[in-house]
């Protein structure tokens, strides 16, 4: 079994007096692909921000690679939900990826042969070598997502956090990005934690799922968590989990409270 790279124990986070995450615990191991699943507004981004050190927990412990979470951690690579690029940004893809090496440092960047080789290597790993000299803002959504992943990977993090990276992609790009991340997890031994409100695209590759609703989570191997009894306990009322042609549907009973329901098609309300 791979060693733990991230451990979250009894994490509680409150924003402006409202509890967003309540006693959340899970572990992630090296090389694992983990889906962080939940509907919009359940606290996926808050959880990622807490892991990044951008939100202070009310209680609980976050351990990364055996050390307590600090403000900045080289072991974590991050791809935010949205990077709005102006069309005129004068930045090539290779320069943006190189910025991932040392963006927080002061002074003019001095690029060595080793830096350039690492940038080439990571661009090749994400299948973006041919984009290296293109203007970053001129790329399509799927191409930009590959480059953002390269930027996050260039420092060889042990875990990669991705906040809704599939949200604005067409189905073909969704498949390609999921396959790419799965390959990176296997070949580069990097743990992937990807948030999404819809799990079906991730089912073929997910080793583990963290299912978040109402501030609470259930986590573990996908086939153990996405079960009627587990999710019913998590929601606090009965839900059915149905598999149709390899896709999972979580179905609530009529008249149940709908506040915490994930979006269609993960959860369908009849």
């Amino acid at each position, binding site marked *: 079994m791979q060693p733990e790279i991230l451990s979250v124990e009894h994490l509680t986070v409150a924003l402006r007096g409202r509890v967003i995450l309540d006693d959340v615990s899970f572990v992630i191991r090296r090389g694992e692909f983990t889906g962080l699943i939940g509907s919009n507004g359940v606290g996926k981004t808050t959880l990622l921000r807490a892991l*990044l*050190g*951008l939100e202070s927990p009310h209680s609980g412990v976050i351990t990364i690679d055996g050390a307590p979470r600090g*403000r*900045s951690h080289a072991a*974590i690579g*991050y791809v*935010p*939900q949205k*990077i709005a*690029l*102006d069309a*005129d*940004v*004068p*930045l*090539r893809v290779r*320069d*943006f990826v190189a*910025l991932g090496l*040392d*963006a*927080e*440092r*002061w*002074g*003019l*960047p001095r690029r060595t042969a080793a830096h350039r080789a690492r940038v080439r290597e990571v661009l090749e790993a994400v299948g973006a070598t041919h984009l290296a*000299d*293109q*203007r970053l803002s*001129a790329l399509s959504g799927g191409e930009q997502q590959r480059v953002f992943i390269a930027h996050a990977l260039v420092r060889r993090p042990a875990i990669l956090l991705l906040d809704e990276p599939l949200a604005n992609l067409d189905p073909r790009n969704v498949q390609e990005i999921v396959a790419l991340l799965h390959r990176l997890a296997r070949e580069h031994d990097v743990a992937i934690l990807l948030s999404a409100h819809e799990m079906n695209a991730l089912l073929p590759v997910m080793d583990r799922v963290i299912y978040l609703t109402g501030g609470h989570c259930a986590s573990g191997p996908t086939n153990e968590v996405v079960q009627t009894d587990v999710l019913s306990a998590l929601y606090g009322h009965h839900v059915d989990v149905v598999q149709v042609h390899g896709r999972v549907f979580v179905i609530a009973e009529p008249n149940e409270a709908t506040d915490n329901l994930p979006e269609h098609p993960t959860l369908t309300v009849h």
Partner: protein
Amino acid sequence: MHWLIAPGFFTSAPVHTALVLSAIAATVCAVVGVFTVLRGMAFAGHALTDVAATGGSGAVLVGASPLTGFLTGAVAGAGAVAVAGGRDARGRDVATGIVLSLATGLSALFLYLDATTSSATGVTQRVLFGSLFSADPSTVLPTLSVGLLALVVTGLTVRPLVLTSLSVELARARGIRVGLVNVVFLATMATAVGLSALVSGSLLSTALLIGPAVAAVRCTTRLSHALVVATALGVGCSWLGILLSYDSYNWMPNNQSLPVSFFVVVTVVLSYAICTWWGTRARRV
């Protein structure tokens, strides 16, 4: 050759001073301007030019040098925007608008007092639209020192500046103190605006800050190239503006030179149009 460069241009001491001062101001404005454009802070840059006018007109009132007034006004305005603006772009815009209103009101008061109580002539013209040929040669050294300081600070913060320009969230995740970077950049931008006000007057100093920078980012794909092109355009437009203003002495029936700031702004706008056309064409190919 005299039709292009009027006699005495290369031997005139005021021209030498003007060329040196404009080169310093244009270089600082070009470098800082590229990041101003990247960060979407053109409005804040424009507002600081009006605050610089408050400082310039106030300086004349108390007998201080215009450079001191421009720099003090712009840096104080940047401080006010930083303190009142909060952490997001919307808060910054609102704070900028309020600071701009207050500064414009103070400028009106100071210029009125300058005109009615000061013995100096042409103060309004000098503060608002510049008077480069009458610049005191003793301002070259302080201008150079302040300009170098602004360039060094920009160089030191270049990597955090770029990342915070692209994504504040990504920068925070990397441990970058985004608030500190914003404050340092506002102060640097204020310095550039103060220097630019010397060349083209406070009202038109946005031209040197924004024009060459936005022209450069339109026609380049690398940050280093954008910085070089913006600097070349800024210095080139400033020097061409000085030359045309000098030449215009012979064009006018009353032998009066037209303002340098007019020619600087016209050449900047022309270079912007050419670079935009060039950049659009290059992206299509």
